[in-house]
Structure formats: structure tokens, C-alpha cells
């Protein structure tokens, strides 16, 4: 499937800042199921965009844009060719042994409720890793209502699970917390999802989790959609949690408060058929 992604992140400042420094994780890399045909990042201000790689192997771009200005926008436009690999992610950049992804972070600390959830999933599947993770995905998808109101970027897994509400990021955090509690290395994946229902304009990127299954490797689970990852998923960055894989992080010097608007467009670029 050829997926076209274009999104804009726009910051508006009450009082113009003196300068803004940001690090972007917006550029996908290739693996067996995904090939980046073209990718471009454009900033509204003139500045140097340095390309690096972080510890997980994500491609990062960092920049400092000198102010003052009232608005700063980051536009990304690209095309990715994907094909289905039954959710298994092979040939991706791996900088660490899988066990690193057993590490808990503040956002993925399990509480008693999540531990219960994890244990009951293990109980129902007799301890087999793969079915267990599928059960976890389905249960989370059923139990948690998709709602972007009550949670925000710093909501922890435990808080979201208590509310039984959240967005893809929260579902992923809960999934990670539960899986790590069961000693399954699991990581956070940020990316994009092409919706089969024809809705192309989205408010944000997508997020899901990957777990390491013995003899199989990394397998993608998307609790927000209740499925394993498919060719509709474009994998951009990985990390221990949202903060590690965040698309944009940064600081601004001077100026007042900022407001942030994100618009994502994920569409199929269907000029080709597969033979």
C-alpha cells in the first residue's frame, strides 16, 4: 500500500519568543514491511536543520529558530510504501537487546489495577506469550473508551486506566505497563495509521506498541484499533514511552504561553496496483 502522509504542527505564541529549540522525530526509516519513497520536513523559519540519530536509532532533526515571530510551523510531507508482514517487524534498526524494553518509566508504571489486568490476561491464555498479547489488545480496546478530552500528554498509564478513557497514547501506555509486568519486553511506537473508513484528516499521529516474542521477534499490537499492526501502519519512531518517541520536543526562550495545533492527513496514494 502506498500511503501519503502530510501533517502540519503549528505553534502560536501570545508574546513572540526570542528563540525556539526543538528536536523532531518525524522521519520514518525503512524496514522489511515499509519503504520510505520520499520524505520532506519544512519549517516556516529559516534555520539549520541538523539530522542525527538518537540512541534507539530514530532519525531526529534538531533546529534553533531565532525570533521574534508569532507563529512557527513544521510541515512534513512524504510517501511510504508498505506491505503486510503479519505484524512482525523485521529488518528494523535495533540498537539495544530486547530486554532493555523491560524498563519502567514514570508514564508506564503499573498500579494494582493494571497488574490485575495483566495477570488475568495471562491466566486466560495459559501463559503463552502471543495469544496473551492479543487478548490484552482486545480487552483494552473493549474496556477503554476513546476520548481525547480527559487525558493529555503527561497522563500516566495508571491514571488513564482508572478513568477507562483515553487516546491511542494512553491505551499504548497501559498495554506497555501490563506487558512489562509480565516480563515481556515492550516498546512504544509512534507513527501514522491509514484509516480504511476513508477519514483522511486526523487530529494527531497514531501510537501503538511492539512486544518481543521469542522465536518471532518484535510484533506490533495496536490496542486503539484492537488489531495487530497491518500495512496501514507507518512506523516512525520507537522509545520506552511517549516521551522517548515524541514527535516534537523543545523549549522556547522568552515569550508567553503557546498554543499548539496539529493537523494530519493520511491518505492512500493509489497510483499503482500490486501484482
Amino acid at each position, binding site marked *: 500500500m502506498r500511503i501519503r502522509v502530510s501533517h502540519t504542527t503549528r505553534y502560536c505564541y501570545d508574546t513572540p519568543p526570542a528563540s525556539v529549540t526543538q528536536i523532531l522525530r518525524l522521519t520514518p*526509516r525503512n524496514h*522489511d514491511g515499509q519503504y520510505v519513497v520520499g520524505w520532506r520536513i519544512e519549517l516556516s523559519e529559516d534555520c539549520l536543520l541538523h539530522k542525527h540519530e538518537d540512541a534507539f536509532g530514530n532519525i531526529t532533526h534538531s533546529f534553533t529558530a531565532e525570533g521574534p515571530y508569532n507563529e512557527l510551523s513544521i510541515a512534513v510531507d512524504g510517501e511510504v510504501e508498505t506491505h503486510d508482514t503479519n505484524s512482525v517487524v523485521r*529488518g528494523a534498526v535495533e540498537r539495544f537487546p530486547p530486554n532493555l524494553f523491560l524498563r519502567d518509566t514514570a508514564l508506564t508504571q503499573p498500579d494494582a489495577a493494571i497488574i490485575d489486568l495483566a495477570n488475568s490476561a495471562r491466566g486466560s491464555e495459559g501463559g503463552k506469550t502471543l495469544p496473551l498479547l492479543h487478548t490484552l489488545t482486545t480487552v483494552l480496546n473493549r474496556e477503554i473508551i476513546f476520548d481525547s478530552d480527559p487525558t493529555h500528554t503527561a497522563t500516566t498509564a495508571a491514571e488513564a486506566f482508572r478513568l477507562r478513557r483515553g487516546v491511542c497514547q494512553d491505551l499504548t501506555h497501559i498495554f506497555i505497563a501490563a506487558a512489562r509486568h509480565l516480563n515481556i519486553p515492550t516498546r512504544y511506537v509512534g507513527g501514522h495509521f491509514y484509516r480504511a473508513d476513508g477519514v483522511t484528516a486526523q487530529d494527531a499521529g497514531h501510537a501503538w506498541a511492539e512486544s518481543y516474542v521469542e522465536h518471532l521477534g518484535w510484533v506490533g499490537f495496536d490496542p486503539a484499533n484492537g488489531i495487530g499492526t497491518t500495512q496501514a501502519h507507518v512506523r516512525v519512531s520507537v522509545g520506552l514511552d511517549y516521551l522517548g518517541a515524541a514527535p516534537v520536543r523543545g523549549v522556547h526562550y522568552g515569550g508567553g504561553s503557546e498554543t499548539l495545533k496539529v493537523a494530519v492527513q493520511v491518505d492512500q496514494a493509489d497510483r*499503482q496496483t500490486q501484482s
Partner: protein
Amino acid sequence: MLSRTADNLYWLSRYVERAEFLARILEATQRLTTLPLTYVGTSNEWESAVATAGCASAFFSVYHEANEKNVTDFLAFSTTNQTSIRGCFELARSNARAVRTALTVEMWDAINGTWLELKRYGNGPNSREEFSRFLRWVQESSLRYDGSAYRTMLRNDAYWFSRIGVYVERADNTARILDVKYHLLLPEKERVGGPLDYFQWAAILRSVSALTAYHWVYRDSLKPWLVADLLILKDEMPRSLAACYEAIVRNLEALAGLYGRQGPAQRQARGIRTRLQNSRMDGIFQRGLHEFIGEFIAENNRLGSTISEQFLR
């Protein structure tokens, strides 16, 4: 476009590229043999040249000993060896003649002129000096063909097929040249990283016109893993495996765009490109450079047959 036409264009480019590669191997071997024998001890450069060209078994079915005369004859002028330099130019010209109308005048002139001039060299030169001139001439002929294709061809499927031929062949050749070092024996008393080792690596880099590039990129003395890094993973090095695959993928993409459909060749090429992008040198050396190259050559050949299957039949 008829698949037969595509096939001719693809192989035309491959043969010209291969002729150049053979000239480069012979030149590198000549250079390696200039070290005094007392200094090197026993030497097997000519044997390694045959192994690198990938025709050791064919060679030893005709000759018993790999020495300068036999090897230069076999790789450059032989008519029994179909893919000697002469054989390559003859095959290239017959492919070109079959698709004369798909070529520009400049390309045809380059290939036909080369073929005519080849006769001047008869069955081989009389002196080493003349042979060196011959090798330069082969490389210049390939440059002329490549340049005229690049400058004069219409950017359509004919151009893309001919480019894919160039890059599939070039990737194979770079991998093989890098493997020379595996076939060359380092005499027991020589240490790795010693003067002879250094000289051999320099000859390899020189043979792909990359010695200056190496110093530009690394600003360091010659180190095996850096040489391998340059010729395998560096995008900015035009003969590196990564750069060749970048070009293969791009040209296959262009074909897919034009024909409105894609197939196994595109997917396979993208897969190889991805693996090259995601590899790092320490990982490759841990598994063994020779093994990596062997796998790559096999994979590159598989892509070659997939391309044939998908487009050229």
C-alpha cells in the same frame, strides 16, 4: 516497449560495465605484482584476479597455471571466455545492434566505435606498457558509453532499463573487488596492517577510483573496516553498494510509475536497500566480511533474475 528490447538495453549496459570492471581488476592486479617478489615471498595475485572475476573454474578448465600471460589473455582477449573484455564488447555491440533505434546516435557511435577499435588490439598487446594503455582505453570506452547514455537518452523506460543494468552490474563488481582481499594471501611473516597489507588495500581503493575519496571522507590511514564502510555503506560514494541500490530502487520506481504497477523486483530491491541502510560496519565484520559479500552477491543475482522474470521475458 517489447520485453526483448528492454532485455537488450539491460544487457548492453551490463556488458559495458563488466568490461570496465575487468579492466579495473587487471589494472589492480598489475599494480599488486609490481612489488618485488623477494619482498612479498610467494604470490597469487593472478589467481586472485581470476577468482574475483568469478570465473576460476572456467579458467582452470583451459589453463593449468594462473600467471600473467594466461590470466590477461583469458580475461581480456580470449574468445573461449565469453565474458572476457573482448567478449563483453562483442556482446554489447550485438545487443546494441538489435535495438539500434532505441539508442541515440552518440550511444551507438560509442559502442560501435569501441567494437571497431577493439580489432586494432588483435590478440593482445606486445608489451606491458601497451597493455596498460589498452586497459585505460577500455575504461574510457565505458565512460564514453555511460556519458552519452546519461546526456542524450530520453528519460523513459529505455533509459531506466539501461540504468538498472549498469547498477546491478556495478553493485556486483564492487562487492567482488572488495572480496579480492579475501583471496589474496598475506604471507605469514607479514602482519595485518603492515606495509604489504596497506599496499593491497590501497590498490583495491585505487581500482575503484576511491583512494582520494577515502582520505576526504575519513582523514585517516587505511583501515580495512573503513574501506569496507566506504564501499558498502556510504551513500555518497558512487560505486558503493548503498549508492548502487539507491539508484536501482529509484529506476525501478520510475518503471513502476510509468507502467502503473509494481511487483517482486521492486519489493526485493527495496528490501536489499533497507538492509544496507540499517546495517553497521561492526555488525558486518562480526559476521564476517567475506560471508556478507557472498550473501550480497547471491542476493544481487536473485534480483537480476527477478528483473528478468518480471520485465525481460
